């Protein structure tokens, strides 16, 4: 092993997160869930749409969190899997008239496969080298989608327009509201499954790889397999998020899935707290709403304002929303004592 490599692999990718600290307490979970279920009843369709996007990006951030927070691997290529998922859903819905709900598992499986395959060669890379390889994937994806021989399916640069589904069984819900609850159900399912995954034997194996790869393999963990599996699972969840995103936005085009999206998801993960799954939704809120706030402050300098806000977050609360939650918890405990 060369000296340069040693430096890179020795530095821990992320700070270890104890298992129990990965989720919220039951009480808090119920409050958040109730808020997510009840809020749409009182707000405009536009806000419901924004909440749907919040959940969708939340899922994509969660997927990255499993990969980075769980197994300690970096990825700047999540936008590529998001795009594959979105296109899978859009093509199945528009060219084959498949029901939207059925396209999501397909998108998940396709992306799992893509992620697993990409994980095979990526295995040999670690740390910043892996980040760079996935970065290349994200850069290539919009151009691959424009390729001439795929154009018949992808619509090339013009993209594909997707039809928004109506509520089934004649339920008296608007399209937006139905899609929100549908997304919410999918999100809760994936969140619970992810929490369980990280708490399981496989989750422990992933985290042991994150903490010390050599020790993990000495203990009999199949490092290669678990690393690729983490990539596959992460890609699969991102794909489902992409599929939901295509239905919510009603349009897919190569320009929607550039490297900017991958970096946004990365920002979301860091702001939410690496390795803290509930933080995903906070991170998602950050990448959706903070650009709007930045725009409100200054139209010409919105990018700079966003940068300053991001800098403040990283500087003041380097562990993101997890740190804020911990501080809140300690305060609450103090109040109880008094």
């Amino acid at each position, binding site marked *: 092993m060369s000296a340069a490599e040693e430096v890179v692999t020795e530095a821990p990718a992320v700070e270890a997160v104890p298992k129990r600290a990965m989720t919220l307490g039951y009480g808090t979970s119920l409050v958040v869930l109730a808020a997510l279920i009840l809020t749409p009843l009182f707000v405009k369709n536009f806000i419901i749409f*924004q909440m749907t996007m919040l959940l969708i990006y939340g899922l994509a951030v969660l997927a990255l969190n499993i990969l980075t927070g769980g197994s300690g691997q970096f990825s700047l290529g999540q936008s590529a899997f998001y795009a594959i998922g979105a296109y899978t859903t859009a093509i199945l819905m528009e060219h084959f008239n498949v029901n939207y709900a059925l396209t999501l598992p397909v998108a998940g499986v396709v992306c799992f496969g893509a992620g697993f395959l990409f994980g095979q060669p990526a295995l040999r890379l670690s740390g910043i080298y892996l980040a760079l390889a996935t970065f290349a994937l994200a850069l290539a994806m919009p*151009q691959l989608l424009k390729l001439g021989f795929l154009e018949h399916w992808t619509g090339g640069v*013009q993209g594909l327009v997707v039809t928004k589904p109506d509520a089934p069984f004649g339920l008296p819900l608007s399209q937006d509201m139905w899609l929100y609850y549908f997304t919410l159900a999918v999100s809760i399912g994936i969140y619970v499954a992810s929490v369980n995954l990280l708490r399981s034997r496989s989750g422990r194996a992933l985290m042991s790889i994150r903490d010390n790869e050599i020790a993990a393999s000495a203990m009999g963990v199949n490092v290669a397999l678990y690393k690729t599996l983490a990539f596959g699972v992460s890609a699969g969840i991102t794909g489902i998020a992409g599929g939901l995103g295509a239905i919510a936005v009603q349009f897919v*085009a190569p320009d929607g899935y550039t490297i900017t999206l991958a970096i946004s998801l990365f920002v979301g993960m860091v702001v939410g707290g690496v390795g803290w799954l509930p933080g995903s939704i906070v991170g998602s809120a950050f990448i959706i709403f903070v650009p709007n706030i930045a725009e409100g402050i200054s*139209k010409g300098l*919105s990018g700079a304002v966003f940068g300053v806000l991001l800098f403040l977050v990283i500087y003041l609360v380097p562990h993101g929303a997890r740190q804020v939650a911990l501080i809140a918890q300690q305060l609450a405990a103090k109040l109880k004592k008094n």
Partner: protein
Amino acid sequence: MSVIKKLAILSTAFGLFAATAGTATAQKKYDPGASDTEIKVGNIMPYSGPASAYGVIGRTEAAYFKKINDAGGINGRKINFVSYDDAYSPPKAVEQARKLVESDEVLLIFNSLGTPSNTAIQKYMNSKKVPQLFVATGATKWNDPQNFPWTMGWQPSYQSETQIYAKYILKNHPDAKIAVLFQNDDYGKDYLKGLRDGLGSKAASMIVMEESYETSEPSIDSHLVKLKATGADIFINITTPKFAAQAIKKNAEIGWKPLHFLNNVSASVGSVLKPAGFENAQDIISAAYLKDASDKQWDNDPGMKEFYAFMAKDFPEGDKLDGGTVVGYGVAQTLVQVLKQCGDNLTRENVMKQAASLKDFRTEVLLPGIKINTGPNDFAPISSLQLMKFKGDKWELFGDVISADVGG
């Protein structure tokens, strides 16, 4: 006061008179976003992101509407211009369009920019029956009133431009060998399709090479060497400003002197031909519909003088040489005309109806002879261009104004 200005005031006054006379007995009618005092107009622009250079269009429009408001507004109503940033991302455009329609409740969305962004919101706007008026993209598909009666373009479509080149080539150089360089995206491909359609059955034999480049490439030199090797005697240059300047320079370096057609997107004297070197740009042919603010021949043109005055007084921080300011000014004037025509009937339906009944309307930044005409089956406001050839340090218009209406 210039004659044009007097005329403008006179016609405004007349328009007001006609409007009040015509609707004296009619009820005032409003849809969301319009009231006795205000007309709310939405807009989506890439103020940030890869296409942020176009953001100046939105800022010009805001300045122009402010000028109109300071002068009393339109039929007594002020324009409230709500402009949001979508960073040229389609999902963000959908979010902003929904915010404008459902939260801000605008009467219409005006001049939203970018083909991907407008495609993303087109279905939504049409299902909500909210006008998506004068979109800022040259794609051909916006002229489709049968399927999308709430969407209308403004500038000539890319396809109509290359069709005009094709007409010219077929007439003057029927045996030419054509080499094409195009940007690998919707804009480049739209242009290319227009050329192929325009050449018709001769396209296959005349076009000897179609070479594409990506915007991420730092230099397009290798493509030009390849194109030169084909021995083509006509070069059709479908590139954005930075690459167009590179191509003109490189052609001179490698000594390739075909008949050079440069797309209108990059026909700016200030930002393309000057940096490329005037000596390298002689005899290039292009087509235009707007006056170029960086072209000296318009310095004493009354219409452009009015534009320069606007830039100096109302938008001093803007760059008048940036083509975006001329576009923003022209399209904002077109909207003001439509809203004037609406009178007191400010429903979304009437906005579309009035937008589809512009007759020989001119904003003075259009080239002489080009007029804006629309109808129930013609949602392409500007559909003519004029050919021009670069001589010395300016474009010389030649031939007639050529019209090429292409349906979406």
